[in-house]
């Protein structure tokens, strides 16, 4: 038996967009065990809830993550609205769904680009990000912010979209679909991508369930688990079908995300067809009292915002359970037994968002 050595991976590593540290126990080039450690970007955002008005905290909850910001804000609002027993206008729920899907597409395109970069395929990285720019343009012209939208409010949303804007979005969708088809073709068929991802980082169906994986990680292993199936917000009226692959390797997880780009476009078209007319924001008076557990689907998987209030303007507790934290145990399982050169690819397939995870 060869001697074991420990190679530190991260927190500063070219493939890692955010800092996570892994101690890789190696035997020759093979990883025997991976020991993760976190705590490099903790900001104490949950504690801040005790010092900010619950309505102003929406802007902070959006800044928990720099990529899936919109959905964090929407989930926090959803939790507070449930505590206060508010029924928000249906139009606001549809608008939230549309922006959530745009946010998901921009996150997935960002990830597909980073993933291509981790494989050493820089050209594909640039192309993914070029397409992502079109999504950011839509977000900017409809909300005012490219990445941090800032339109969520307790009681609805602060911006509306008119019929002309909906028509413009509808005319742009065929172009986006063509772009996605081309990108998906490359991720599906290209030899470079296949060599680096097929059969790498296997996660069996049973292990994915047992380790509590969420999002594209569990859907790439054959389970149809998606919080949007619970029908929160406007999703109960939209025709949603989760994208599921059964292979359980890095390639499957990549194609789940590529497939979700198309699902998001379908959902947006669906929502535009069915959006009702009416108000977008209701006046909110008083302070919340009680607790609630809101669950939504982020690009990386299921996110849970727990809020507890005691009738004062500051909440007592705000707890976020982010998808990356749930995906770390499956990651450690996938890393055991892989080659050192495959580690960056496997780490990226869980789409690690450390800023979210540590808050």
């Amino acid at each position, binding site marked *: 038996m060869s001697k074991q050595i420990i190679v530190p991976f991260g927190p500063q590593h070219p493939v890692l967009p955010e800092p996570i540290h892994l101690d890789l126990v190696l035997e020759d080039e093979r990883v025997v065990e991976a020991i993760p450690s976190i705590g490099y970007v903790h900001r104490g955002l949950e504690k801040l809830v005790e010092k*900010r*008005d619950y309505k*102003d*905290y929406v*802007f*902070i909850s959006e*800044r928990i993550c720099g990529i899936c910001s919109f959905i964090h804000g929407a989930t926090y609002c959803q939790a507070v609205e449930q505590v206060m027993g508010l029924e928000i206008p249906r139009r606001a729920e549809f608008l939230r769904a549309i922006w959530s899907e745009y946010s998901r597409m921009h996150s997935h395109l960002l990830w597909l680009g980073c993933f291509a970069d981790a494989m050493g395929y820089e050209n594909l990285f640039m192309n993914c990000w*070029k397409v992502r*720019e079109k999504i950011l*343009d839509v977000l*900017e*012209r*409809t*909300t*005012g*912010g490219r990445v*941090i939208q*800032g339109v969520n409010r307790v009681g609805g949303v*602060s*911006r509306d979209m008119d019929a002309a804007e909906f028509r413009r979005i509808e005319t742009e969708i065929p172009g986006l679909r063509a772009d996605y088809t081309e990108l998906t073709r490359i991720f599906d068929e290209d030899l470079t991508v296949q060599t680096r991802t097929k059969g790498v980082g296997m996660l069996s169906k049973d292990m994915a369930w047992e380790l509590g994986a969420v999002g594209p990680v569990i859907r790439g292993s054959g389970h149809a688990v998606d919080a949007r199936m619970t029908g929160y917000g406007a999703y109960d009226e939209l025709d949603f079908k989760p994208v599921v692959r059964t292979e359980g390797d890095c390639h499957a997880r990549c194609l789940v995300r590529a497939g979700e780009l198309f699902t998001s476009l379908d959902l947006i078209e669906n929502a535009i067809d069915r959006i009702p007319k009416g108000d977008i924001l209701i006046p909110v008076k008083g302070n919340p009292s009680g607790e609630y557990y809101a669950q939504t689907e982020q690009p990386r998987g299921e996110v849970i915002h727990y809020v507890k209030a005691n009738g004062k303007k500051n909440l007592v507790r705000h707890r976020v359970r982010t998808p990356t934290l749930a995906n770390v145990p499956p990651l450690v399982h996938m890393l055991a037994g892989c080659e050192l050169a495959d580690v960056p690819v496997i780490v990226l397939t869980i789409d690690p968002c450390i800023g979210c995870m540590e808050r």
Partner: protein
Amino acid sequence: MALTVLKNLVKGPATIRYPYQPAKVTPVTRGHLVVNINNCIFCGLCRAHCPADAIEVSKPDRTWKLHQFQCVICGCCVSYCPKDCLSIEQTYLPPSPAATIVTVTGPDEPEKNEGQEEGINKKL
């Protein structure tokens, strides 16, 4: 592939040379926060509701101070201002090597309309 190469040669780069060329903005873009100090009553609501603690208001000195590097341009203060003197402009601020604080001093006499506006940029 040949088609893509030809297309890219004709089209030119997909990026712009920011900051030498101005960034794309839309009519609703949140670029930076400005204050119309003549209408300000120094009530301090913007300071109290700022999620980033970026605003300082002093009623005795009649100053309104913004820590521009702390400001996240969320627009929260704009929605709370009772006199509607805060607004968000579309253009982004130019890059700066050091944190900037903008101090705006209001007119001396609140009864008079003809006040003076003074903007001082201090580099820390």
